[in-house]
C-alpha cells in the first residue's frame, strides 16, 4: 500500500530527509517514531503529496506521489498534527465539505456523515460550530474526516499529541479498528507506550534517516534494549543518552 524507496527532501542546502525506505501493507500499522525535528512530518507530507520529494520514489495504493498526486489523495486519509477544522462551520458542514471534495454527494454523503458522527459520539453536536469544541472533540471530527471517503491508507501525524487520556484512548481504538478493517496505517509519534500498544512494526527515524525498522522485538534486539522506549533513546539519542537515563 505505502512503498517508499530512497525518499529525500532538501530545503535549500539543508537535507531534512535522507533516503528513507518504508513499506506499509494492508491491515498493518507502522509507527514512524522519532524525536522532534527528525523528519517525521516532512516524510508524511511527501507521502501525502503536499511536499515534492527531491529524490527517491514513493507509491501509495499503486499511485506515484509525484506523477499522480490527485489519485494518491483519493486513496489516503490524512490527519495532520493540527486538526485544521473550519471553526465557523459545524461538524456536519466540515465533513460535508470534504465529502464533496472526495466526490461524494446526496444521501450517500449524508448517511456517511451521520454514521461517522454517531461512531465518534458527536451526533448531539452535529450542527454546532467546531470553534466551540474541545481539542478532543475537534480531533474526533478530524478523524471522521480522515475515513469519510473510506480510504485504504491512513497517514496520521502525531494523532494523540495534546489529548487527554480518554481522548488518546479513543484514537488508539480508532487505529486498531482501522487495522481490523484492512487499512494500511502509517502514524508518527514520540509516545513509545502507545506505539507498543498499537504498532505491528516501527521505524525509528533520527536526523532524517531510518535508524532501525521492523517488528518491536527486532528493533529492541537491534538496540540491545528491553523496551521500545529504551531502544528509541539508544537509537535516536545514542548509547550515552540511554545510559544517562538509566542512571
Amino acid at each position, binding site marked *: 500500500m505505502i512503498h517508499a524507496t530512497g525518499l529525500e527532501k532538501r530545503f535549500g542546502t539543508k537535507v531534512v530527509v535522507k533516503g528513507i525506505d518504508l513499506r506499509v501493507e494492508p491491515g498493518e500499522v507502522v509507527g514512524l517514531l522519532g524525536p522532534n525535528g527528525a523528519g517525521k512530518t516532512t516524510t508524511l507530507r511527501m507521502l501525502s503529496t*503536499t511536499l515534492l520529494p527531491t529524490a527517491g520514489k514513493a507509491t501509495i495504493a499503486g499511485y506515484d506521489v509525484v506523477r499522480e498526486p490527485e489519485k494518491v489523495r483519493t486513496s489516503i486519509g490524512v490527519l*495532520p498534527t*493540527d486538526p*485544521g477544522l473550519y471553526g*465557523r462551520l459545524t461538524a456536519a458542514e466540515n465533513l460535508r465539505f*470534504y465529502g464533496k*471534495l472526495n466526490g461524494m454527494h446526496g444521501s450517500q454523503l449524508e448517511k456517511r456523515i451521520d454514521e461517522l458522527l454517531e461512531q465518534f459520539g458527536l451526533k448531539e453536536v452535529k450542527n454546532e*460550530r467546531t470553534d466551540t469544541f474541545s481539542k478532543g472533540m475537534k480531533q474526533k471530527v478530524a478523524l471522521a*474526516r480522515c475515513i469519510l471517503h473510506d480510504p485504504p491508507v491512513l497517514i496520521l501525524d502525531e494523532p494523540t499529541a495534546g489529548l487527554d487520556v480518554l481522548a488518546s484512548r479513543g484514537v488508539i481504538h480508532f487505529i486498531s479498528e482501522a487495522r481490523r478493517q484492512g487499512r494500511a496505517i502509517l502514524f508518527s509519534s514520540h509516545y513509545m507506550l502507545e506505539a507498543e500498544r498499537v504498532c505491528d512494526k516501527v521505524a525509528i527515524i533520527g536526523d532524517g534517516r531510518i535508524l532501525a525498522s521492523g517488528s518491536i522485538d527486532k528493533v529492541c534486539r537491534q538496540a540491545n534494549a528491553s523496551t521500545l522506549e529504551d531502544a528509541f533513546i539508544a537509537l535516536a539519542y545514542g548509547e550515552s543518552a540511554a545510559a544517562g537515563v538509566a542512571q
Partner: protein
Amino acid sequence: MNREHIRAIWRKEMLETLRDKRTLYMMVLLPLVIMPLLVLAGPVMMERQFRQSAEIPAKVLWIGSEAPADLAAMFAGVDGIEWLLDPGLTEAEARERLANGDIDAAIALADSSSYAMDEGTLELEVIFDASRSGSTRAVSRVEALLQVWSERITAERLAARGLPGSLVEPVRIVAFHDITPDPDGFLGGMLLASLLPLFGALGAVAGGMYTALDAGAGEKERNSLESLMMAPVSRTSLVLGKFAAIWTVTFAAVALMILSMTVSVIYLLPRLMSDAELALRITLFDALALFVLMGLFVALSSAVQLSMSVYARSFREGQAYMTVLTFAVMLPGMYVSFGGLESSYALWTYAVPVLNVLLVFQETLTATGSALHWIITLVSLAVSAAAALGLALYCFKKENVVFRA
C-alpha cells in the same frame, strides 16, 4: 479542473464569510451606511451652518465721525446687519471690541475723505478680523450694500447734471444663457464622477478583504490549508473556488457601494439640501458596461488579494499587505476624483490597471467617453486579471509559499 470542487470550495468560503461579522461590516455596513453618511454629512452640515449664520445679523459699528445720513438710513433699514453708531469711539477701542467679539466689523471715515452729496468720494476704512467667519461675512455684506449705495449716488449725480447713466457704465451683462443640454443631469454626473471612482476603487479592495485574508493567510494560521491541500482537488480548482468567493463578496460590496452612493448623491442629497436639483442620465447600456468594467476590476483585485493572502505568513502580515494595496488604489483614485475632471490623458494611461478604470468610469458619468478608451481598458484589465490569477495559482503550487510560516 472540476466544477463540483470549485462549487464546494466557493460555497465553503461564502458560508465562512457570511458568518464573519468583519466581512459583513465591510461588505454591507460600509457601503450602505458609512460611505453615504460620509458623503451626505459634509454638504448637509455646511449648508446648515451657512443657513444658521445667514440668519444671524452682522454687527457693524460706525466710528470716528457722523455717517452720511442717507447711508446710515440705508444700513439701518437692511436685514442681516445690525447697524451701531458710536461716532465718539476711537479706532483702538473699536479694535478691542472686535477682538472681544462684541462687534463683527467697524467702519470709519478716512482722513482723506472729501464727500459731499453731489461730488467727491466717501473714503472709508473697514476694520475686521479675517480669522472669524462672522467678521468676513459682515465685510461682504457691507461691501455689497456700499456698492448699491454707490450706484444710487452715481445715478443721482448724473441725473442732476442731465447725463445718462450709460456714461459711467460702458459695459453691462444683461443675461447669461447656459447651453448645457441638461444642467441637472450634468451636475449629477459631475458630482458622481468626482466621488464614485474613488469609492468604487476602495470598495474593490476593502469589500472582500477579509474573505481574501481568510482564504489564504487565515487557512494557514488555522492550519486548515494543509488538510485542504491533501484533499483530492487540483490546485486550479482550489484557486478558482477561492477566487470566485472573493470575487462574489467584493463585487457585491462594490455594487452596493455604487448603488448606495448614486441614491445618496442623486436623490437624498438634493432633498436634504435646500433647493438643489440633481439627476443622473446614463443609458442602460452605459450602466451595464460600468458593471462589466467593475466586474473585471474586481477580478483583478480579488486575484491580487488571494496571491498576497497565501503569500503572507499570518493574518496580520496579510492585513499589512492589504493596507499597502488600499493606498496603492487610493492614490490614483484621489488624483482622478479631485484633480482631473476636465483633463485629457495620453492613450497609454488607459492601459494602466486601476487608473484606466477610474478614468473610464468618470468619462462615462460625464458623457465624455470614447470607444477606444473602453477597448484599451477592458483588454488591459482582462489580461492583468488573468496574469494575477496565474500568480495566485503559482503561489498555491509553490510549497515554499504554502508552508511559509
